[in-house]
């Protein structure tokens, strides 16, 4: 491309090349992400898990809720790849169906807490003064409740429905995220480049979105990956208390809670959901780290720098 540019190309062609290069920031970032092996594998695993969740009815060998007491607590075999539980239900099938609940809980909770926590935290940190006080005292009020108790209260009030569970777990996470976002915003708004942007006539909204938000993505990303894992665990706790997924429906957390009674006799029962949760959490963490690095040009590796110089 460099060679083309140095040649005498027509104005139109030149414009096209220049326009192309306008998008190069996003391209460089995605290239950087793909070069990051843990991040890429995390993304692949996550995609596979999601695919498995979507395709659960097609690929599950058994009905996940069909009780068959004659086949209870069977160790892994060719018929039941991951064994069966105390009601003789196929563990693999339950995991596949459970992925639908657990993954959507994780994703929806993250979406929920982001869409409230980030705007609230940024508004508070950016506006300061009374707005900050009112918003943060409100968040403090939420933080005074023990998180699980608050979730229990919300689900208890609204009824144990999957959407309510998501909202309840999300509400618990919003104040935590809001505080982190506020703190990061407070320090970012004092940066010289924010002052420089103001000196160039940038509006407050533009400064908030373009200059501050872009620079505080790292802590947000980290918090969101933690939030995703916490949501899966929280759903398990709620299910354990009978407020999450209702039996006999499967979810990773619920199956794990039930398996605890058979830990000594049937270790595969808790190993399977544990390993799956770990896999999901680990890959989302890798993806989060990868995104964080890819969004920060300062952490780009040398090969990318050469590439960016050559376009």
């Amino acid at each position: 491309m460099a060679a083309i540019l140095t040649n005498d190309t027509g104005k139109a062609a030149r414009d096209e090349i220049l326009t192309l290069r306008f998008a190069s920031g996003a391209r460089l970032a995605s290239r950087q992400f793909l070069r990051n092996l843990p991040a890429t594998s995390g993304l692949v695993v996550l995609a596979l898990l999601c695919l498995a969740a979507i395709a659960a009815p097609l690929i599950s060998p058994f009905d996940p809720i069909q009780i068959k007491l004659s086949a209870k607590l069977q160790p892994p075999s060719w018929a039941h790849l991951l064994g069966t539980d105390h009601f003789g239900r196929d563990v693999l099938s339950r995991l596949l169906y459970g992925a639908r609940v657990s993954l959507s809980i994780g994703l929806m909770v993250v979406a929920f807490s982001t869409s409230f926590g980030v705007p609230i935290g940024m508004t508070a940190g950016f506006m300061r003064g009374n707005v900050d006080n009112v918003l943060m005292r409100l968040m403090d009020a939420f933080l005074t409740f023990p998180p699980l108790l608050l979730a229990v209260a919300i689900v208890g009030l609204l009824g144990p429905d999957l959407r309510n569970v998501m909202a309840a777990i999300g509400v618990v996470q919003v104040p935590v995220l809001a505080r982190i976002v506020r703190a990061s915003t407070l320090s970012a708004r004092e940066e010289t480049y924010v002052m420089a942007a103001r000196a160039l006539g940038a509006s407050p909204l533009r400064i908030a979105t373009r200059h501050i938000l872009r620079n505080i993505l790292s802590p947000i990303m980290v918090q969101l990956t933690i939030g995703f894992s916490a949501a899966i665990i929280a759903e398990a706790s709620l299910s354990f208390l009978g407020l999450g997924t209702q039996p006999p429906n499967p979810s990773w957390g619920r199956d794990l809670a039930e398996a605890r009674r058979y830990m000594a006799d049937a270790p595969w029962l808790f190993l399977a959901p544990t390993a799956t949760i770990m896999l999901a959490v680990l890959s989302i963490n890798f993806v989060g780290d990868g995104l964080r690095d890819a969004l920060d040009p300062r952490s780009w590796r040398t090969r990318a720098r050469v590439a960016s110089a050559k376009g």
Partner: protein
Amino acid sequence: MALLSVRNLTTSFATDQGLIRAVNGVSFTLEPGEVLGLVGESGSGKSVTALSIMRLVREPPAKVEAELLDFEGTDLLRAAPRALRDIRGSGIAMVFQDPMRSLNPVLSIGRQLAEPLIRHLRMEAAAARRRAIELLEMVGIPMAEKRLGSYPHQFSGGMRQRVMIAIALSCNPRLLIADEATTALDVTIQAQIVELVRTLTKNLGTAVIWISHDLGLVAGLCDRVNVMYAGRIVETGPVREVFYRPAHGYTIGLIGCTPRVDRVGTPLKPINGLPPNLMDEAPLCPFLPRCDVAVPACHQTMPVLRSLPGGHSAVCLADLTSHHRGAH
């Protein structure tokens, strides 16, 4: 018609201990294309003056007041936020002290150059791109086209300050405020940047307010100079007048503590003491406790601005003709 008229500008900060007057009754005018130096030690109110003119000090806790704060006929004190934003960057632009921190680390150089062009000049993306390349070439960055996709951390301090200057001049402002723009740079780079700003603004006819505590720099660069102390302008005049015939004890002190090649061997004379607490409204000259040339009258009355020959004036009671070097 003056480009910028400032009359009795006062910027105060409300703190728990009381009101701090960082800028206290500053008045001056600036003609189109004029280069004005603003000198004084740290805390004398140079930067706050600049930020007040651009209305960039945060209000509250600060409060900016003036009898007149006029830029090209716009009352900057009463202008709507939107109108102020339109002026910032296109009418008055600013270059800050620390080039390492005044560019956004996560946006490419090209984007940061294009932003004001799109904002103020309503350029299309492709046109902004072309202009960004021209601007980078203008400030002497080689391979400008390839540099557009680079990020600030890939540039050295001097290059970043060049980029800042390119951004500042991108929308053809009539006034450029350089706030200690070379202080954070190596001496060799300093000279390059100073020369760059000098030629560019001269060619573009941009007026410059050059804020610095480097007297040598201001002497070589500016048409006029305002010497600030404790938030006030204590002496003002054409550069040669002020440096060859200083008319304020503080200016004499500043000149005395500047190292000079032609006086190797003579010890530097520091100004003793510290700048005054800006909270106390002094009834006498604020420089009096540190002044070497005070006369008895200084202990009785507050000096007022006194006109001297050669368009020169100072807020000082002492007759300092004996301190003037080179009576040629």
